């Protein structure tokens, strides 16, 4: 019984595919989900046509359950569309409207078809509603997943970008820290610093915290750990870029930085490092 119902809808869809497609396009355009800055009308039409094809296939093969294997292609196509839109910068509702705007044209068709049979009409409408709602929710879910992927990747990039170890001179490394130091980042910072010490054979490392917004006990502890690890590798650390407010905070928190050389600016720290390495910078004498 249900199967024949479904195939009836598929039948209607098959007969009026082009008309439904153009109506659907009209609705999408009216709803403002086409972002002319992001996607051309042609591209949207192609996308819609492809999805409508899969949608009909799903209806033909297995009616009412959009979670079944018959709907695999439709779901895949939808996932792809949502993911692409998430990356392009569509909003979630703009993405979901793609599916929801299909309701109106299909409902209209059903109404025309079953004008004399309210019972079948209601049943058909309900079935269609369930399918489209499910697919609509799916777009949002996929959209969110794609966005989360983007965020995760950016976090990763940020983590790697924000821990550069630069060589200032033979045997002198600098580690300009930017952003908050949490345990995960400290681990990355520590590893990259220690590896660079091995690579370059450096004996002095300057940790510059000008870009660290706040220093609390945890951050201080992470810094001290990094200093201790570098010392175990035979490199001395100098902490530089301590702003006045941070100096006040450190003392008020009772953090003990007595074992570490601290300097207000990177320049001061570099001067110390040069002196330790028995090097000197002298002004050029112009004759």
């Amino acid at each position: 019984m249900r199967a024949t119902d479904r195939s009836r809808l598929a039948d209607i869809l098959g007969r009026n595919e082009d008309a439904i497609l153009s109506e659907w396009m009209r609705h999408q355009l009216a709803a403002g989900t086409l972002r002319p800055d992001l996607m051309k009308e042609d591209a949207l039409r192609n996308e819609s046509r492809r999805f409508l094809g899969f949608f009909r296939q799903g209806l033909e093969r297995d009616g009412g359950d959009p979670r079944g294997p018959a709907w695999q292609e439709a779901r895949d196509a939808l996932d792809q569309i949502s993911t692409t839109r998430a990356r392009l910068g569509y909003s979630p509702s703009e993405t979901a409207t793609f599916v929801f705007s299909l309701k109106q044209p299909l409902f209209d068709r059903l109404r025309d078809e079953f004008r004399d049979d309210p019972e079948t009409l209601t049943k058909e409408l309900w079935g269609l509603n369930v399918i489209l709602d499910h697919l609509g929710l799916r777009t949002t879910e996929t959209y969110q997943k794609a966005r989360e992927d983007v965020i995760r990747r950016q976090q990763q990039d940020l983590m790697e970008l924000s821990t550069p170890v630069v060589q200032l001179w033979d045997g002198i490394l600098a580690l300009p820290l930017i952003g908050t130091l949490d345990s995960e980042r400290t681990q990355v910072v520590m590893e990259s610093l220690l590896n660079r010490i091995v690579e370059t054979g450096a004996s002095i490392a300057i940790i510059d915290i000008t870009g660290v917004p706040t220093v609390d006990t945890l951050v201080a502890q992470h810094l001290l750990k990094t200093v201790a690890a570098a010392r175990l590798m035979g490199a001395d650390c100098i902490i530089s870029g301590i702003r006045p407010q941070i100096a006040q905070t450190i003392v008020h928190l009772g953090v003990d930085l007595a074992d570490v050389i601290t300097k207000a600016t990177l320049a001061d720290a570099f001067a110390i490092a040069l002196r330790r390495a028995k090097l000197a910078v002298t002004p050029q004498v112009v004759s």
Partner: protein
Amino acid sequence: MERIPILKMGDCLLVTIQVDMHDRLAMTLQEDLTEKIAHTRARGVLIDISALEMVDSFIGRMLSFIASMARVLDARTVVVGMRPAVAITLVELGLPLTGVHTALNVEKGMELIRADDQGAVNGRRQA
């Protein structure tokens, strides 16, 4: 029984740990080394742990102890060639080996001992 060789180089002792340190071996090393320092009147001890891939708290503490004992016998201990992973582990274990001198490699460790020796002419090291 397995032993870690202790080589004499001038007035320095060189210990290269090439095998995985287990507790018993560490104890033996401690005994051998103190005896050797006293016997040869060595000024410096270089412990090369560049082949050591793993440390636990016991080995970390043993290194600390050995350094302190050598200090009592008036020899300076320098631990050289620690791997980054080992350094991180020791710090995470809360054993930053305070009081132990460290250097990146044997060469730098040797320099450290020499510099220290020269600097201490007026200290208690003067014979």
